[in-house]
């Protein structure tokens, strides 16, 4: 315990640098995963014929071990931040995509019918009715994606992506227990923060929908 505090005091810049790398890696990957998963999910709920094969593909993607996904493109993409981001995007995509589809699919059809019947244009139905009602489920998807990406980003160190994994890897190599533990606790804290942050947003979105669904 004392060792840990001492190590943290001695290496504030290392902690800051790896933390920054980890946050950048995770944040960028989540952003891209959302940027692909949200529109793709919306498009697929409108094209049910394509949805089946894509969902099957994404379900397979979801079973691939995180370490395997990170290193499998090593000969193709090499090492560094870019290949790490590619792998992490693929890792977070299923949760965003599937929850977007589930959320939109769960909007009661009579509410959509009423919205169209009042004269909302298709884009207005999506923006004013479907997305707000699907928001809790979509946010839950973003939450899982965020937690999974932060966790998997720890492994990015093995393909030169940096992040907190560096502390764990170095701690292990140097048999430096305080560094090992500091890295582990730092990742756990970041994953927990992602969980709590998105969990909060999810509750806010649910509360907006009123006390109970009608």
């Amino acid at each position, binding site marked *: 315990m004392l060792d840990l505090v001492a190590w943290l005091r001695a290496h504030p810049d290392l902690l800051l640098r790896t933390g920054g790398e980890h946050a950048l890696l995770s944040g960028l990957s989540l952003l891209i995963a959302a940027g692909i998963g949200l529109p793709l999910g919306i498009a697929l709920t409108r094209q049910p014929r394509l949805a089946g094969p894509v969902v099957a593909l994404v379900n397979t993607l979801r079973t691939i071990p995180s370490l395997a996904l990170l290193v499998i493109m090593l000969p193709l993409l090499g090492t560094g931040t870019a290949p790490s981001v590619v792998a992490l995007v693929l890792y977070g995509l299923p949760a965003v995509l599937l929850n977007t589809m589930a959320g939109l699919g769960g909007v009661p059809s*009579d*509410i959509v019918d009423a919205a169209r*019947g009042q*004269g909302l244009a298709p884009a207005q139905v999506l923006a004013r*009715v479907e997305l*707000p*009602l699907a928001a809790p489920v979509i946010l839950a998807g973003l939450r899982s994606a965020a937690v999974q990406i932060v966790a998997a980003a720890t492994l990015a160190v093995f393909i030169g992506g940096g992040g907190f994994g560096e502390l764990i890897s170095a701690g292990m190599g140097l048999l430096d227990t305080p560094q090992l533990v500091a890295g582990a606790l730092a990742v756990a804290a970041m994953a927990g923060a992602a969980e709590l942050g998105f969990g909060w947003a999810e509750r806010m979105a649910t509360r907006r*929908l*009123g006390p109970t669904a*009608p």
Partner: protein
Amino acid sequence: MIRLEGVGKHYPGAARPAVDGIDLLIEEGRTCALIGPSGCGKTTTLRMVNRLIEPSSGRIVVAGRDVTAADPVKLRRGIGYVIQGTGLFPHLSVAGNVATVPRLLGWDRARIAARVDAMLGLVGLDPALFRDRRPASLSGGQRQRVGVARALAADPPVLLMDEPFAAVDPLERGRLQREITEILRRLRKTVILVTHDLDEAIRMGDTVAVMRDGRLVQHDRPDQVLAAPADAFVAEFLGSDRALRRLTLLTAAAACRSGERPPEGAPEVPAEASLQVALSILLGSGAEALAVVDGGPRPVGTLSLAAIRALAAGLPDPSGAVARSPPLV
């Protein structure tokens, strides 16, 4: 005015058309109750009017404009739409729901706020109490009232209702049917009301249109449909108690021989009571005739069992009691 000319709908892949060449004219300010067994094409017919479903054939004219030539989104903003589950937006307040179409039409805030309050008042909900509530916190009947307020908010000349009160408990349903009918008459809305409830059709419709297997089999005033079903199917659909049902449409005042003094000791019936109530009093008391009273010092006239029997049989009506609306085109 709503006019359907040879309107049909054939869903892709279906063996036969869901709606098969319907001609229907609903005069301005009238309510047409579209009735028939489940699956006969009522909802499909209704949803073609605001083009939530595209007709496969025929023409639909609403307020003088051919619907099939209009932009469907703009069209719907001018047609009220009420459905069974209300389809209220759960994430918006009552006011937000009612304001839907006015907002789409770009009204300014003050006008919208005033309109929302007026609409809530119209459907019997105190704006101060209900404006900011969420749909989830309302009873079924209150939700349906908000649904009607939302549909009427931009003052559309035409209203489409698909089994609007089916999910409401019976007591509240009766109250809603009376109040909403009164509102629609007063505002002179032209209405198509889809229902599978015969009592609702009779109570709310100026005319009743009976459908079977995608075709229109009869369209007439409720009392005419009850008195003279077009065929065996309509007769069976109306039920063997249709003569009794018909009596609910007629008042004691309209059927009595006015001025004639009732027999000594005849039971009394209020002038505005239905003939069904009058018949019930007659049967219960064993009398042959009733004194029709209206609160004045003397009875208005006499209502005999024979007169009711003659009306129920659909015989030529001596007193002209059945003359609520002009003949249909």
